[in-house]
């Protein structure tokens, strides 16, 4: 443009401009509306980083997958020659190796209190039935002909509403869709308070929503808390071996929390450690969304299918609770099944709010937290099952 000097204006496309607007919108939603700010702000800025031409933050293969290198010496040379950028390094070593989502899950384990699930083990059933959306959307996505089997499975797993398993599965089975799937998954988790209430109302009667549950849950002993992560890890790993990385990290983090002798490790895992990993994940996922990759018809389809996945998962949880009620003397409020759609703790809060509206005496939060935690375990199991079938 000016002799040897070249500004980015000439290379800017309408796609880039649109992506900059999308990035700006995500940053706005994160900051102004407080929607999942820990993820949406870094994702939004990651989109900025790769949609300003000639910046060289990330280079891609013709398939839209970030370029990677096979060895450290090649990496150093490629960076020196400007063939790959910083975001390629973060992607190659953090996401492609699946280290970041797994370590985030370790941190989440250290932050999770499983007492409500231990006090009412039946919560696991609601967590399981709430995976319905994963499989319904898998079928729709595959039958549509727009996605391969592997891609359809990754689109479906958005319905599990749990970030790390979604990222883990997509990085393994359909890395080219990692950007849109991760963005949609985290954005929709923030929209749970808008998506779930109409579905819960449509599938339950006023009488069911008013069912009273005693506010207290059973006191769980320290020994139970310690044995829980060990038992869950051993049994789930034997039944679904491919879930070992996810369940293993999740339960290890939880063991650090409950053991009572590793408080420093637990605080570290659930503090700065998970924060650093989360923003590395966010900014790298944002960098997976250059205009050429993100502005494709399948992105819009993923956005639409995610709503269907959340809706069916909510329905699955409620139907699971209604079915269980047929066999219980002391009926449970079927709304707590909807909290099986992980999205910790948003879906449990939705149930609490709706429960109090129908019956002001009801305090369903702790009852809903059980399926909520069980949903996180269930999504890891589902990711393991899908990996075992498709990888």
């Amino acid at each position: 443009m000016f002799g040897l000097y070249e500004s980015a204006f000439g290379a800017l496309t309408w796609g880039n401009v649109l992506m900059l607007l999308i990035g700006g919108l995500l940053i706005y939603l994160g900051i102004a509306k407080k929607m999942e700010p820990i993820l949406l702000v870094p994702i939004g800025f990651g989109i900025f980083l790769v949609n300003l031409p000639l910046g060289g933050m990330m280079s891609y293969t013709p398939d839209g997958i970030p370029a990677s290198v096979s060895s450290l010496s090649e990496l150093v040379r490629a960076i020196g020659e400007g063939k790959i950028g910083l975001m390629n390094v973060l992607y190659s070593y953090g996401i492609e190796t699946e280290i970041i989502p797994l370590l985030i899950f370790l941190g989440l384990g250290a932050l999770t209190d499983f007492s409500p699930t231990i006090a009412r083990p039946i919560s696991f059933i609601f967590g399981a039935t709430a995976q319905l959306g994963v499989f319904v959307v898998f079928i729709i996505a595959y039958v549509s002909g727009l996605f391969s089997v592997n891609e359809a499975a990754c689109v479906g797993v958005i319905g599990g509403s749990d970030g790390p398993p979604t990222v883990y599965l997509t990085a393994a089975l359909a890395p080219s869709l990692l950007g849109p799937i991760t963005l949609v998954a985290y954005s929709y988790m923030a929209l749970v308070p808008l998506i779930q209430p109409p579905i819960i109302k449509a599938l339950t009667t006023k009488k069911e929503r008013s069912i009273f549950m005693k506010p207290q849950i059973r006191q769980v002993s320290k020994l139970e808390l310690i044995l829980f992560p060990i038992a869950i890890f051993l049994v789930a790993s034997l039944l679904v071996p491919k879930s070992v990385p996810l369940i293993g990290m999740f339960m290890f983090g939880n063991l650090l929390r409950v053991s009572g002798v590793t408080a420093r490790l637990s605080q570290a895992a659930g503090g700065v450690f998970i924060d650093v990993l989360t923003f590395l994940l966010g900014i790298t996922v944002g960098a997976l969304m250059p205009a050429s990759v993100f502005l494709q018809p399948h992105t819009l389809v993923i956005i639409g299918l995610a709503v269907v996945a959340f809706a069916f998962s909510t329905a699955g949880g409620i139907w699971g609770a209604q079915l269980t009620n047929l066999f219980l003397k002391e009926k449970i409020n079927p709304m707590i099944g909807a909290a099986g759609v992980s999205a910790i703790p948003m879906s449990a809060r939705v149930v609490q709010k709706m429960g109090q509206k129908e019956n002001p005496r009801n305090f369903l939060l702790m009852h809903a937290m059980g399926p909520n935690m069980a949903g996180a375990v269930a999504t890891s199991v589902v990711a393991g099952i899908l990996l075992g079938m498709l990888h």
Partner: protein
Amino acid sequence: MIDWALIGEIAGGGYGLCILVLIVLAVVVWIIGLVIRKTTKAEAATKEVPTKES
């Protein structure tokens, strides 16, 4: 060409397996809780006996 057998195996089999695994986990957690509560009650009862005798 849609492979319906594959869809059935992944969707039906996958969802069924997920429910089965989670039911097993529920039973395991319930049994652990039950055993610990019974043991704790038994221990508490054993401790109470000498106190009453003394």
